[in-house]
């Protein structure tokens, strides 16, 4: 018994030493297998162009939809960012306020937190502006006194602060009325919020779709290579070795799909750029559409690749275990 043990240990040590000697070789061949697998997986995808194209297009469409929605939301947000500047609060002062009271009100308004600037518009200035802009100047001539009050224009630092500032300003003495023509902007903000959530939901749903599509494609690939898997396992291929080509296929399908989606989105951007510029010109806006961009393209590729990899991983995990040599 003792003899058996010591001999077993001997052979174990020999085995370990043998492995150490060839570790560099093993690493090199591991890398070579990765390269060879990447190459053969690419060739397999290209070798069945029609079938692969269908899979890639489905993935591309599933990626294009949420990405396009995302870009729309981002563009609208950029557009509304330009509107922030006009988010002014009009503060109307009670009639007959004294000069000194107005001055102290100015100080108070300027002292509120979140205020960017305060502009005083006297009743006279307001009347002059009204006369020149409205075309009712002649009618004003018939009035005994100026119906317009003194007012302030308060510019908040952030649109989000506007509502709070309105409440605070209402509390101040001498203030007759406060108007904030911001509701539509807040509604837009809420809509954009919803849009962003929609992007997430749509992205998650279609991402799941991509996982299923890739998973199914890989499942079929596994079925069609059943014999090969059996033999490879029989001659001592590890699970990782068997998995590798399928994981590469999933990765490549995802990335090819993302590539096509990226091309579609870039094309869409160019297609819309003309009309959007024309529209912006009509509104005297500097706005121009911003497309996917390089980093967006890279992100899309990463997302596509990882979703494809996940799909392949799930399919491989589920189906490879069932294939054992008989």
């Amino acid at each position, binding site marked *: 018994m003792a003899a058996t043990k010591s001999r077993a240990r001997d052979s174990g040590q020999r085995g370990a030493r043998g492995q150490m000697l060839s570790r560099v070789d093993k690493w090199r061949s*591991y890398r070579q297998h990765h390269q060879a697998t990447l190459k053969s997986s690419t060739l397999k995808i290209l070798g069945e162009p029609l079938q692969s194209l269908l899979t890639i297009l489905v993935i591309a469409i599933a990626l294009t939809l949420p990405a396009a929605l995302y870009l729309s939301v981002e563009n609208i947000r950029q557009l509304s960012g330009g509107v922030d500047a006009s988010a002014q609060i009009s503060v109307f002062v009670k009639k007959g306020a004294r000069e000194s009271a107005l001055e102290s009100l100015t100080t108070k308004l300027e002292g509120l937190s979140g205020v960017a600037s305060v502009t005083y518009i006297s009743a006279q200035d307001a009347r002059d502006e009204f006369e020149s802009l409205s075309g009712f100047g002649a009618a004003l001539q018939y009035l005994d006194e100026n119906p317009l009050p003194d007012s302030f224009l308060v510019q908040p630092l952030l649109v989000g602060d506007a509502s709070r500032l309105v409440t605070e300003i209402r509390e101040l003495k001498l203030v007759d009325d406060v108007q904030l023509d911001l509701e539509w902007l807040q509604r837009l903000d809420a809509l954009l919020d919803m849009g962003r959530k929609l992007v997430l939901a749509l992205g998650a749903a279609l991402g799941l779709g991509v996982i299923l599509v890739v998973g199914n494609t890989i499942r079929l690939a596994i079925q069609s290579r059943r014999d090969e898997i059996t033999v490879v396992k029989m001659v001592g291929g590890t699970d990782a070795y068997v998995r590798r080509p399928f994981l590469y296929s999933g990765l490549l399908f995802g990335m090819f799909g993302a590539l096509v989606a990226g091309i579609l989105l870039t094309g869409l951007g160019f297609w819309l750029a003309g009309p959007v510029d024309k529209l912006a010109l009509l509104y005297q806006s500097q706005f121009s559409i911003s497309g996917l961009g390089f980093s967006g393209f890279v992100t899309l590729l990463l997302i596509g690749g990882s979703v494809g990899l996940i799909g392949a991983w799930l399919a491989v995990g589920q189906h490879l275990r069932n294939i054992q040599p008989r």
Partner: protein
Amino acid sequence: MSMIRFDNLCKRYESGYEALRGVSFEMDAGEMAFLTGHSGAGKSTLLKLLMLIERPTSGNLLINGKNINRLPHSKVPFYRRQVGVVFQNHQLLFDRSVFENVALPLQVTGYSQADIGRRVRAALDTVGLLDREKHNPIALSGGEQQRVGIARAVVHKPKILLADEPTGNLDPQLSAEIMALFKRFQDVGVTVLVASHDINLINRMDMRIMRLNQGQMEQDGVSYGGY
């Protein structure tokens, strides 16, 4: 030390079927033996246990002095690299050349391309098919296909060579050639176990014969009276 040692081994399938019932035997390194018996006697199960396709229900299975009963799943591939297997139906892949078929065991182990080329050609030379390396195995005859299968089983120089009905579909002449090949591997120190019910062929070779009957070792020795 024995290379293969079955120690009171039992295998009961989930269906309740008892394929092996207390089988014990030993084979030394470099020994060759035939495993015979009627179909259903347990030959295939015995080979599957040796390939770790199946696990024993009870008893011990020692390979090279090491108990492999509880070898973890992740270690199984490395165990299989010490074993070469020849199947009755060859299990060759028809989507690649003879060369690539034989190269598989080396590829999974991670040999360099140059090593693979050298070893594959040596193995093909041994089975006399060096001129067919670029052919698709589907274009070869049954006997040639079986020899490709043998080349694949020995290309990585395994310690143990298992064969399951390797001459099942071959005529006597080809069968004898295949057996002669196995004998050559035994001569260089490989432990060879051949499952076969080809009694005529077995009787012509002067070899140890183990005969299974209903999951039990009925006979073990070189004498084979009663056939």
